């Protein structure tokens, strides 16, 4: 199936490349619409390897976006078409992929890949070619410290700010209710560490004591020793800078050691629908920051959730939404500027986005000079078996449960 899909893309890319040559040869002849005048968008995603799980989520989001745009008449009246390559979660491959997409396949636009580790090298390629680079997943602070002038992160906030509402809440508690000690375990990954260390540093500044601070390599699968350290410290708060399997394995290992923290926060994993299938009824009280919720009342979101659910049978999660947001941001720029091709057009798109505010499924987004989005993440918690927004209070779907019930 996937090879057949690749084949069709190959044919389509060849067709559109041919169409490009034709249209430049006989300029003045306006493209007659249809398949020879499509906007081709190049993407490289980790469809296999360590990031295949979120990578496929991003793929679903991009594909849903393309399908919906095409159903609604396309971009600038032209159909869009995605050309997605598999980078196998490797930073070397992702560079090759974007080189090939831009230079060889001559795609009109590009979308970003998944994960900070892959975003930085691919943004560099995009910058060399002067391409607009809107990305759904490079949230870590270091992404925005590389001096990229073409990069925009299509989500509400960078990793370090994900837990801002939680830190504010905890530090606002009266002295005798406030937790005193914190255990942190994070994957050796810029995004995961960004989220966990953002919270860690804010709590440490507020006077809480950091009693465990562990880092583990991304290939770690056995978390019993880390869990033993955390459990032995008896910390009030456990913070996990996690992706997916590490959070699940760490939580189960902590449960096996009968460790009962007063608050447990893990990035990314708890928002994954597979999470409660893996942990069962013991998710109660687990916290996670999220940049997206299907219930959000933003105008385009209602439409997105409805049509996405129609296609896939289940509502989109954060990865899908961030990918979709990327599509929306690029589309807004293309519609406003009125072009979608390599060359000068790309700089115009970048300039337009720099000062723009774009309405997306995660709310209105605007960016600073380095491409940092200027909004905030919501804090979700498992309450009565469902993941609900508990902070900030004005967006609350359920009351914040603290201390967390035993797991």
């Amino acid at each position, binding site marked *: 199936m996937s090879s057949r899909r690749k084949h069709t893309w190959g044919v389509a890319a060849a067709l559109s490349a041919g169409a490009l040559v034709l249209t430049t040869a006989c300029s003045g002849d306006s493209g007659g619409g249809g398949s020879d005048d499509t906007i081709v968008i190049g993407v490289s995603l980790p469809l*296999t390897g360590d990031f295949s799980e979120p990578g496929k989520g991003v793929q679903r989001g991009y594909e849903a976006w393309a399908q919906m745009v095409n159903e609604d008449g396309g971009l600038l009246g032209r159909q869009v078409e995605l050309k997605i390559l598999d980078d196998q979660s490797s930073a070397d491959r992702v560079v090759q992929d974007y080189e090939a997409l831009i230079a060889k396949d001559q795609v009109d636009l590009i979308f970003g890949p998944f994960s900070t580790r892959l975003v930085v090298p691919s943004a560099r390629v995009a910058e060399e070619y002067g391409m607009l680079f809107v990305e759904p997943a490079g949230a870590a602070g270091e992404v925005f410290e590389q001096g990229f002038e073409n990069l925009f992160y299509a989500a509400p906030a960078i990793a370090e700010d994900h837990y801002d509402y939680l830190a504010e809440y905890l530090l606002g508690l009266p002295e005798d209710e406030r937790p005193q000690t914190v255990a942190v375990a994070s994957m050796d990954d810029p995004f995961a560490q960004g989220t966990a260390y953002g919270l860690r540093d804010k709590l440490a500044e507020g006077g809480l004591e950091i009693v465990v601070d562990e880092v583990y390599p991304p290939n770690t699968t056995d978390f019993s020793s880390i869990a033993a350290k955390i459990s032995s410290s008896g910390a009030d708060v456990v913070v996990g800078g996690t992706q997916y399997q590490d959070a699940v394995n760490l939580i189960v290992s902590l449960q096996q050691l009968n460790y009962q923290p007063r608050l447990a926060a893990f990035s990314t994993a708890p928002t994954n629908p597979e999470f409660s299938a893996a942990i069962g009824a013991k998710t109660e009280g687990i916290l996670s920051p999220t940049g997206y919720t299907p219930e959000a009342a933003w105008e385009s979101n209602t439409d997105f959730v409805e049509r996405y659910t129609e296609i896939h049978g289940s509502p989109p999660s954060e990865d899908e939404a961030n990918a979709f947001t990327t599509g929306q941001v690029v589309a807004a720029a293309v519609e406003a500027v009125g072009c979608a091709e390599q060359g000068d057009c790309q700089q115009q798109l970048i300039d337009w986005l720099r000062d723009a505010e774009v309405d997306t499924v995660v709310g209105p987004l605007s960016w600073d000079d380095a491409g940092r989005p200027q909004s905030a993440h919501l804090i979700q918690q498992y309450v009565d078996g469902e993941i609900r927004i508990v902070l900030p209070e004005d967006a609350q779907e359920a009351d914040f449960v603290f201390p967390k019930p035993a797991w």
Partner: protein
Amino acid sequence: MNTALLFQSLVLGVLLGGLYALLAAGLTLYFGVMRVVMIAHSAFLILAAYIAWYFNQQTGWDPLFSLLITVPLFFGIGVGMQRLLITRLRPATLTMMSVLLTFAIALFIEGMIGFVWSGTQRRIQLPYSGDSINFLGASVAVVKLMAFALAALSLALLYLLMKKSRFGQALRATIQHKEAAQLVGIRTDRVAGLGFGLGLATAAIGGTALSLDATIYPSLHWHWIGPLMAIIVVGGLGSIPGTAIAAMVLGIGQSLLQVPLGTTWAQTLFYVALFATLMLRPQGFFGGRLAQRF
């Protein structure tokens, strides 16, 4: 560093070592019997874990029951693989070529798992997954204890089979000296096929034990093959007791080293042990002299 944490880590290390021993047992058997480096062993482990997960998903029964399906199935696949694929490799380049062949099989299995069950990371949800037994102040997770028991039981069975049965004698004779074994009337090619099947049957048990307490995904096997290879080299290629001891030492070592060094450095223990073995005692610390033929 407190003693309670140290003791807890020791207990975890013993449990981990037992699992390592089971997962590595098949690997050492293949090499012992046929000089085959079986890169796909860990892929079969993950496949067995996926079958256990799927079995549990479909029937709601304990994943351990899936062993009734996977053990005979894997044994059959093992015999078939040896008879149809491995025997076709030229004896002179067997070890080298088996790396390529089994690498391809590993990729194939990984691809098929992804194709059939998607790349979504799975975990069997067991009612007792978070339960533990208190042992002298340390918590022993029920699932880890079950995996350990499974490992101890199957390794003991394997050992008895190798030491006491006629087939075991024939297998050991084939390991020790193939030509001499042929001279005394052992049909070494048949024995090799059954030995390969036996190795893959341990993968079925190992994968099921793994599935009790792991989140699985198609590419997980790459994380396992390196440490398992290190274990069988340290243990002396072809020696099952050697593998068990090496697995135990490395498992406990890794678990204890994590306390002062952290996870990143503790993982290097396997490779340090591998280098040390190759430098000081290339035949392995417990095995015979097989490694010299490598």
